[in-house]
């Protein structure tokens, strides 16, 4: 990889590096403490105790009990397990699910699968800032509703949903409530009791833990059909040899996230707010996407009409600044973000959007550096496309 002079990573919502403390916690488990946590002998017992310690740490992050935490391979699997697991386990009671139209594709495409399998899904629309009103959830309930899934905070625009109220409505109506907290973990307080959450998804690599490991909180008593059947691991909720290294890393990351969250919040907000103010000041015709108040601290999604997103990203990358269009693009195809369209952006404005997401390794100087390059890049691309830039 050729690193240009500057190398500023502003894509922490896509993924984060593993923190040194997390790496140090994981390291012994590769070569020395490598046992299978389900083996009876001392290698196995040693791995088992590390797994259980990690479970307690993750439980601590969300205010659940250790026995309610199950390890998975990441946020995507947690979301799939929540949606399909509850749908299959509860289909005798009804086949209706409520969610929003700005969920992560792991939720949306699990819903799509369930629709093909005969379930009915209501996708609630959001307002111009990406928020839903708890009243919408209440109105969408039918006597067939078995599950409500509303993300805590959106990955592209950072908007935070009123999950406490939504959870309250779910609880009052005897419906399961799942929330995807992959993006909010480590940034906002997470409390499954306050949220009345029955299920909650987490992912390691968004909180300076390893990729390929995640967790799901499942409230005691909530039935679930596994998506990975096998050797009855994880209390029969998720089979497969325990990824001890990853689990230990997630545990450590969760512990640190819980400890440092408040300081992080201030730090990320300060940098994000500074960048937002300067972009609004120094670049013409900008729109900020997301809620002005109910937003993740480090997330800034902005549209620069006339400049296309991928071109902006490539140009910034050439200048040593790593950002993304919102969701990591897997198809290579250019499609306006479903989240920005849901806010009511026209498709071309949506295509001209960039997400800056700050992390613990950023400083205010990164904001200055971005602002030394971004305005020029935007006007160059606008020049290429000849978009009308108001004088």
């Amino acid at each position, binding site marked *: 990889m050729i690193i240009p002079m500057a190398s500023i990573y502003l894509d922490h919502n896509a993924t984060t590096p593993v923190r040194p403390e997390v790496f140090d916690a994981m390291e012994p488990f590769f070569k020395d403490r490598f046992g299978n946590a389900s083996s009876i002998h001392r290698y196995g017992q040693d791995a088992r105790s590390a797994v259980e310690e990690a479970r307690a740490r993750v439980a601590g992050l969300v205010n659940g009990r250790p026995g309610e935490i199950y390890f998975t391979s990441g946020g995507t699997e947690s979301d799939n397990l929540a949606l399909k697991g509850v749908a299959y386990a509860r289909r005798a009671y009804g086949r209706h699910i409520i969610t929003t139209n700005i969920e992560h594709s792991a939720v949306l495409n699990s819903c799509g699968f369930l629709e093909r399998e005969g379930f009915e899904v209501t996708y609630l629309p959001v307002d111009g800032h990406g928020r839903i009103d708890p009243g919408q959830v209440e109105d969408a309930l039918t006597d067939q509703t078995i599950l409500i899934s509303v993300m805590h905070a959106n990955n592209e625009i950072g908007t935070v949903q009123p999950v406490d109220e939504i959870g309250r409505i779910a609880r009052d109506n005897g419906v399961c409530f799942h929330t995807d907290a992959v993006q909010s973990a480590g940034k906002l307080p997470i409390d499954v009791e306050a949220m009345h959450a029955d299920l909650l998804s987490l992912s390691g690599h968004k909180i300076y833990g390893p990729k390929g490991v995640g967790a799901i909180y499942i409230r005691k008593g909530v039935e679930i059909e596994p998506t990975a059947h096998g050797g009855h691991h994880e209390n029969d909720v998720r089979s497969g040899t325990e990824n001890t290294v990853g689990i230990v890393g997630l545990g450590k990351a969760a512990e640190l996230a819980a400890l440092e969250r408040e300081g992080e919040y201030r730090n990320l907000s300060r940098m994000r707010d500074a960048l937002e103010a300067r972009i609004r000041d120094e670049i013409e015709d900008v729109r900020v996407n997301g809620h002005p108040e109910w937003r993740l601290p480090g997330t800034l999604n902005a549209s620069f009409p*006339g400049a*296309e*997103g*991928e*071109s902006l990203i*490539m*140009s910034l990358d*050439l200048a040593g600044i790593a950002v993304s269009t919102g969701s990591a693009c897997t*198809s*290579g*195809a*250019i*499609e*306006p973000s479903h989240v920005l369209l849901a806010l009511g952006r026209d*498709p*071309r404005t949506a*295509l001209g959007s960039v997400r800056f997401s700050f992390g613990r390794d950023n400083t205010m100087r990164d904001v200055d550096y971005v602002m030394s390059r971004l305005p020029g890049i935007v006007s160059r691309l606008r*020049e*290429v*496309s*000849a*978009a009308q830039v108001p004088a």
Partner: protein
Amino acid sequence: MYSPAVMDHFHSPRNVGDLPDADGVGNAGNPISGNTIALYLKIAEGTVTDAKFRTFGCAASIAASSMVTEWVIGRTADEAASIENDTIAEALGGLPPTKMHCSAMAADGVRTAIEDYRSRRELNAKAPKA
């Protein structure tokens, strides 16, 4: 992801702009929700003498647009009209499969500009001499 030629043309695109006195203008792409190109050609005695473009789109679209202007200058209108989708991609040292539509758009721009040029000439030919 992209070849050095793509990165070069993206970073320093050739022939950005418009030609107010163009002999043919080609618009291609999806103006509602995708990449778009506006391609301007000057054509003298059946040969392209100048080309400019404006493109809204990804790095590959901009590079393909830039490349197509270089490719087209000096060609006859007939040659230009028979441009193949792959020509531009190859000239750029290849494109990822998911980006082939970008070179296709640039080629469409050329074909549409030549059509425009030809229909203007027909119109001129038919127009009553003043």
